[in-house]
């Protein structure tokens, strides 16, 4: 049985610590906002300069909805779609950084034993730490996506561009896949935390997680597939299965006895 009051106390403590760590706060939260603004700036630039290579792209073959767009608008859509995929990296990277500092940090400072001596279950502690890491990660991802979506209306040279960039497949990925990616990222961080003593080592696992998202990125870029809602749902389903499995493994690693006697 979960004790939400204690979980919320733990989450508040985690966020208070985060707020006090200015360096971590800025280095984690500023780059995603810059990414969103940079993407808008580049899309705006695409609309200003006509690239003759764009005419070579078999746009209609990739996605019939792109037929009939001007070259600049087409460049904006293609670039916008590729860039929008990168937003899926955020829910993996941000929670991974926060969770690694939270768990490995507690391990290094020897604060885990007093915490585990309290009448709180390890499930509650784990859930508190997972939520404290993924909530800011997902919130920031969605905030950046919102800025990107809102800004797209201003920088698009064709009113059809925003609708074509922010397509249903991307929406599904953003709303469904990003929380799952965040969960996977934190579950892996918990497992790695048992073995490492440096938050940066725990963060290396984000490198592994980037692979499936980069496959989506390059797959779209090369025209191998279009991220339609069906592909996005299937991708999310696979992620959900992986997330459940990894979370179960994380709960096995995050046991009072193991933390105190096996974690090194």
């Amino acid at each position: 049985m979960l004790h939400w009051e204690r979980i919320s106390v733990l989450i508040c403590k985690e966020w208070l610590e985060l707020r006090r760590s200015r360096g971590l706060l800025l280095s984690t939260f500023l780059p995603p906002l810059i990414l969103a603004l940079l993407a808008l700036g580049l899309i705006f630039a695409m609309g200003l300069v006509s690239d003759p290579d764009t005419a070579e792209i078999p746009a209609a073959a990739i996605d019939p909805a792109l037929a009939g767009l001007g070259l600049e608008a087409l460049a904006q859509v293609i670039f916008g779609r590729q860039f929008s995929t990168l937003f899926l990296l955020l829910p993996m990277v941000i929670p991974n950084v926060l969770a690694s500092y939270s768990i490995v940090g507690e391990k290094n400072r020897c604060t885990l034993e007093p915490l585990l001596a309290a009448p709180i279950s390890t499930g509650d502690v784990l859930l508190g730490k997972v939520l404290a890491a993924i909530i800011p990660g997902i919130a920031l991802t969605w905030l950046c996506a919102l800025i990107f979506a809102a800004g797209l209306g201003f920088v698009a040279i064709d009113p059809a561009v925003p609708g074509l960039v922010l397509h249903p497949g991307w929406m599904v990925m953003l709303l469904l896949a990003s929380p799952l990616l965040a969960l996977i990222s934190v579950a892996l961080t918990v497992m790695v935390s048992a073995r490492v003593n440096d938050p940066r080592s725990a963060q290396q696992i984000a490198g592994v997680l980037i692979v499936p998202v980069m496959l989506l990125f390059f797959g779209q870029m090369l025209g191998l597939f279009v991220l339609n809602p069906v592909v996005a749902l299937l991708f999310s389903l696979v992620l959900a299965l992986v997330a459940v499995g990894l979370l179960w493994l994380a709960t096995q690693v995050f046991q009072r006895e193991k933390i105190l006697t096996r974690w090194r």
Partner: protein
Amino acid sequence: MNAIECHRLTRQFDRLVAVADLDLVIPAGTIFGFLGPNGAGKTTTVRMLCALIAPSSGTARVAGFDVQTQAAAVRAATGILTETPGLYDTLSALENLTFFARLYGLSAMQAAERAAHYLRLFELWERRHDPVGGFSKGMRQKLAIARALLHDPPVVFLDEPTAGLDPAAARAVRDVIKTLRAGGRTIFLTTHNLAEADELCDLIGVFRTRLISLDTPANLRARLFGQSVRVVLAGPAAPLAPLVQRLPFVSEVSAEERVLLVRLANPDQHNPALVRALVAAGADICYLEPFTPSLETVYLELIQEAVTVNGSG
């Protein structure tokens, strides 16, 4: 009522036996000193009694709760000062305490009240809003002790509570421990400071994987050294030792420079005869006093005995 009861409590890590067949009964309101060398299994014992790790075999009840089947209740009924204070450096003293108070189920208002009470008690109130990272070792230790007491637990485990404290702060902590006993709390004190254990503890357990001895400090002394008197002479003591050894009520004599250490069955009854015998032999006695060996002497003797008997380190 007993605060702690263990029956054949054992913990094994793979092939290493950390704690073996520990039988222990500690009455409520006792300060129990748990003494033993480094690596003796003291931390493992405390972790089992705080329901942090499970025993391999045997049973234990703390504050009336079984450590295996009622682990959450045991944790709620115990407070623990771990080897390292384990405080959150970026949080203030007040935030550290209120966080733990809330984890122990206190309401926000109760948490604030208790935190304020202990911050004042340990003279940290003026620094309550400062990040703990800037605190001295002594201040951190006091804050960690306050954290162990916040939820008013009937049983408190303190691991080296005065380590690193200046004499005044150490005295303040010892006074707090005595106050806790007066309030009916049971203190399980793990320490290498034997003078402190001697001053505070009602019951001493000497431990090295197994419980070597369990008794009051006075009984431990009496058991090992009997009742002894120290006779300080004006001249060398060694020539008089054989004479004293021949007295029927003397069980053991040792001489060092001007001092005779004489073990007697009953000093009150035999001291006059001892003095008469020494004076008759021409000794000039400066003074005579009861000899109380330090707890350190008793401890080292017990550990040495255990090594000899078990033949292990």
